[in-house]
């Protein structure tokens, strides 16, 4: 059975106490920890798996190895080639997803209760015994190269790539995790095996399971699925300070609408002020039509279809980022208004009414996220990765409610740095020029 078993019954809805979600913390006989929610009403199971590290674990000269490796897990394993593997998967009506991110890799699975053993056995084969056949490697490599070429012609990608490169230089965050044409062309089968051994390890593993399965059944299932992975992964990269100064970088590109990607340093997820910053950002730039930026740039002036800002606390650096797109003739005005809003919020703060509105929205919206097996599995695995405990689900709205106007406005003064905003603009923007380095 399990070594530990803690069940927490969480009431998510203050107004309707009947709604509950039982998060069970399970440790398998083999020592794998997982969060489990049993939801028997629909006969399928959603599993979300993450390994910390991700594409940041690429070795020097091997940029793109982790990304390509993840793309190959569904392309042949055990004694099956790519087509045999996919034929078997389709016969089970299971779906598997393999993703590579900066700081983690993700494996998602959905399968029917009634053929769960077969679905798990097939997924195990992909995770533990990938073959990285040369023909699959070459085929997927060509797709990655096409993707790199395509990103090189998309205004949004051109802008964000330039921004990250200027902000992070040689750190993995400074380069595209797909790799370069040169690095991807040089990757070999042995690079794939090496990336696989580095990226999928027990010490960086997070798991959540939601659906038609009891907590008691989950442990043995996970031991079958993941028990044979290596114990330990390599060292993670160092933390890095955001090092881009305020200013403007214009990249000439012949397209009718200019795209701006902008930001400055941000705040760590475990900072005591994080919730104040989160509420503040909702008021300024992420609160849909009600945010200050959306109101000033879109609703009042019609300069854009959308503008948004985001707190981006990565594992090794933290940023506050935003993006906006406007015609070449009007992007300068859109950026000027954005700077003004930034400066006004930093100097004068937000109002009590704005704070209250943001809190009502954020606390009301939170429980709405928990309405599907896959959604709940995703939320739970994300919580584990940033060291939250299951009772965070209950307490989270209290953290939002606890933010005072003084907190929000102190954080506004500290966090929002209008002079440090750096804009990368791609297009043929009228009236904008790059600032000297």
């Amino acid at each position: 059975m399990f070594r530990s078993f803690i069940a927490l019954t969480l009431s998510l809805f203050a107004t309707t106490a009947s709604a509950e979600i039982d998060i069970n913390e399970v440790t398998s006989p083999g020592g794998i920890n997982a969060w489990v929610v049993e939801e028997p009403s629909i006969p399928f199971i959603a599993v979300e798996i993450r390994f910390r590290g991700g594409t940041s674990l690429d070795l020097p000269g091997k940029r793109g190895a982790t990304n390509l490796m993840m793309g190959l897990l569904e392309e042949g394993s055990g004694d099956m080639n790519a087509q045999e593997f996919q034929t078997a998967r389709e016969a089970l009506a299971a779906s598997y997803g393999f993703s590579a991110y900066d700081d983690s890799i993700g494996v998602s699975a959905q399968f029917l209760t009634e053929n769960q053993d077969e679905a798990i056995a097939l997924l195990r084969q992909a995770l533990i015994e990938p073959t990285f056949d040369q023909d699959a490697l070459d085929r997927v490599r060509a797709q990655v190269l096409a993707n790199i070429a395509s990103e090189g012609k998309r205004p949004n990608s051109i802008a964000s790539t330039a921004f990250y490169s200027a902000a992070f230089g040689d750190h993995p965050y400074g380069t595209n995790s797909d790799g370069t044409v040169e690095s991807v062309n040089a990757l070999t089968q042995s690079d794939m095996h090496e990336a696989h051994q580095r990226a999928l390890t027990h010490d960086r593993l997070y798991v959540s399971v939601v659906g038609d399965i009891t907590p008691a059944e989950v442990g043995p299932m996970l031991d079958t699925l993941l028990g044979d992975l290596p114990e330990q992964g390599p060292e993670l990269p160092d933390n890095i300070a955001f090092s881009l100064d305020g200013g403007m970088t214009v990249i000439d590109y012949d397209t009718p609408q200019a795209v701006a990607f902008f930001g400055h340093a941000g705040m760590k997820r475990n900072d005591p002020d994080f919730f104040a910053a989160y509420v503040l950002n909702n008021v300024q730039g992420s609160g849909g039509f009600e945010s200050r930026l959306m109101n000033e740039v879109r609703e009042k002036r019609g300069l854009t279809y959308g503008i948004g800002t985001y707190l981006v606390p990565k594992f090794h650096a933290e940023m506050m980022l935003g993006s906006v797109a406007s015609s070449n003739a009007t992007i300068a005005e859109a950026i000027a208004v954005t700077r003004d809003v930034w400066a006004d919020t930093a100097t004068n703060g937000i109002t009590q009414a704005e704070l209250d509105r943001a809190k009502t929205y954020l606390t009301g919206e939170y429980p709405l996220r928990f309405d599907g097996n896959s959604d709940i599995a995703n939320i739970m695995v994300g919580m584990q990765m940033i060291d939250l405990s299951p009772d965070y689900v209950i307490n989270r709205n209290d953290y939002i409610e606890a933010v005072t106007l003084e907190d929000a406005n102190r954080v506004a003064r500290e966090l929002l740095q209008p002079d440090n905003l750096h804009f990368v603009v791609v297009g043929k923007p009228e009236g904008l020029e790059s600032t000297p380095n």
Partner: protein
Amino acid sequence: MKRLLAALAMITTTAAAQAEEVTTFTLDNGMEVVVIEDHRAPVVVHMVWYKIGSADEPVGASGVAHFFEHLMFKQTDILESGEFSATVAANGGSDNAFTSYDYTAYFQRIAADRLDLMMQMESNRMTNLAITADNIATERNVVLEERNQRTENNPGALAREQFNAAQYQNHRYGVPVIGWKHEMEQLNIDDALAFYDLYYSPNNAVLVVAGDVQPDEVRALAETYYGVIPSEPDLPERIRPQEPPQRAERRITYTDPRVSQPYLTRSYLAPERDPGAQEEAAALVYLADLLGGSPFTSDLGIALQFDTQTALYTGASYNGSSLDTATFSVSVAPATGVKLSEAEAAMDQVIADFIANDIDPARMESIRTQLRASEIYALDDTQGLAQRYGAALSQSLTVADVQAWPDILQSVTEEDVKTVATKVLNRDQAVTGWVVATQEDAR
């Protein structure tokens, strides 16, 4: 392989027992109502679908349906501009809207105990919008920037626009939903109000409420808020210019230096799902999967990506959810060093072979299994179920059609697929489009 076969047999047994709980009724003023119960979480999705889309627009006013969707968030007799969304947000919900060729829909996702407030506001803006010339000027710029973002900055979207215009020469499916730029620039308050007065009425709308609700409670609320709105006596019958028979192949090359990967698409006119007649559409779902569903198991994928290295990507797609004639399309992105003409010839060979040869029964069974399972997975997504009903009812299908669809899909035979393939895969009823960065690539 025995284990897999055993698994298939088991899927058959339980999938049939799973279905969403649906109640339907019609208000006295003609408004149709669909209630989908899902009591797993105290959440509700409230949607109003108007049976009016871009393909119903007056000539010369392309984009007005979508533009009007934006204006619906402005002031009414009791709500200030922006107050609708602000109120939804203040109650912890989110709201949005979308426009397509056949419908315009508005929705909120919110705690179930706020349904009353949502209906109050949504019913208010069905008839009491009070837009001004100022609203028009600013919001017109917003939709022009939306067009910039979605289309002008995206060579693939610009190419698609050209191909659609070539595909539909008489039907309004040939005009983009967001509108042609030169017509969008001229949209005015008269266009907007004429559109609103005629089409935004209960007898032209479908209400879909999905989530933690009881049908009786929804009926009472719907009667209170929507039931009191008079029906529109002058609502015109929905007759749109139909596409004449296409008698000659059409070909287009779209050139744009922002294209990084050349590709080609072939799009054939194809039957859509019709009330009481969804069998051909069901067979086309299989055809799309067999020809180009998965790169690993479809005919195009196997021939062009595995047996030969002709293509980087292949695909086939068909969506039968359409009021009028739909399309079936295949696409190929050639591998490095392969010309578009070579890729197209290889694609045509696969299509010819498909029509000449028998269909593997194991592939049919695999698709059947996946379609059965997709009905189980679909139950996890209440909003998706709501959309399924809202779209269908806006496109002339009935609730019975929606509920019959999974069984019709299960009963498709190899012969049905061959018959529909022979009928649809005819180049004289198709547009072939090449997308390239330079003229040199167009060979």
